[in-house]
């Protein structure tokens, strides 16, 4: 259960932006939504964990205190990365790109398929 990772990420991103009053700092709401998204992902492995359930309730309280909407961005807009697939950091080591590292030595790899279905 990785709930503590969510907690630390949230506190790390909001340490400078937390507003006590009801006025909502948009980045605080964004951080809250990201926190909620992170906590949701741990649901399966954290079910029954007190830290998980208090995080869920804490998020709801903070959301209503700051009038944050549940829908909205969960991360600050980043300058668009030039790589075609933003999911994949372009600086991943070469060894982690099979096709690239394979190409260097020989012809493209020969792919095969296996499938299992039905009864």
């Amino acid at each position, binding site marked *: 259960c990785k709930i503590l990772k969510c907690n630390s990420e949230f506190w790390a991103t909001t340490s400078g932006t937390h507003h006590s009053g009801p006025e909502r700092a948009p980045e605080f709401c964004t951080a809250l939504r990201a926190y909620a998204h992170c906590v949701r992902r741990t649901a399966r492995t954290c079910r029954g964990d007190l830290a998980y359930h208090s995080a869920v309730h804490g998020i709801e309280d903070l959301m209503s205190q700051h009038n944050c909407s549940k829908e909205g961005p969960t991360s600050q807009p980043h300058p668009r990365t030039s790589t075609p697939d933003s999911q994949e950091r372009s600086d991943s*080591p070469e060894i982690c790109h*099979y096709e690239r590292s394979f190409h260097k030595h020989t012809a493209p790899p*020969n792919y095969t398929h296996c*499938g*299992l*279905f*039905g009864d």
Partner: protein
Amino acid sequence: PHLRTFGDDFQTCKVRGSWPLIDNKYLYVQVTNSPVLPGSLATATSKLTIIFKNFQECVDQKVYQAETDELPAAFVDGSRNGGDRHGANTLRIVEKMPGQHIEIQARYIGTTIVVRQVGRYLTFAVRMPEDVVNSTEDTENQGLYLCLRGCPQSERIDFRTFRARATESHVATGGGNRGSVSVEAFTYKSAMVKCKERLPVEDLYFQSCVFDLLTTGDVNFTLAAYYAFEDMKILHSNKDKFHIFERTGDLTPGNSAPGR
């Protein structure tokens, strides 16, 4: 379930319980198959465990687990990528259709996996480079690795004997209502008509569909065969082998290696 191996052999196997579908240096996949009807020899996949072994500075070890009605879009530790290493994003889970269709991309080993739930059971498809396929730990020991070596002879079900019996008896075994699954009794002919709706070419995917309707009466298996064929078309690199047919006159029971 029906198995198409990396070598394009096509087999229908009992393999009840847990069996290693893939077992090499980088990846371990285990399927758990349950009888489709109490006492039936025919089984289908109700649980799937995939272990991505940790790899250099790319990925930590990651475990993915799916079972009927539980097709998560995350690894068991809640993450959706390879962890904290530098190349972690070369392993990721993509949710195509919540609860029905996920894809796992393992770029560091050039591998793509598709897992679906169709009706009450799971389907699995993988595309993998040959040298990754053959990177088994123990080359001399012919361990079980169904995707590479197929099912043990004793676990195979032969279409032909089954079909002969089905055409003689004219009525299939399926029928009645089982829980949330609507089933009907098919004859060999009506099963062929139903399968033809989705699989117009009478290849081994079509034959599997007919077999499944006759043994279960559950029309969801028509979709399972259809999606298996669709996933194969996306993942297989040789379009001349999309359709494979039963080899006529082959002596080995239950083995339908690609015909001419």
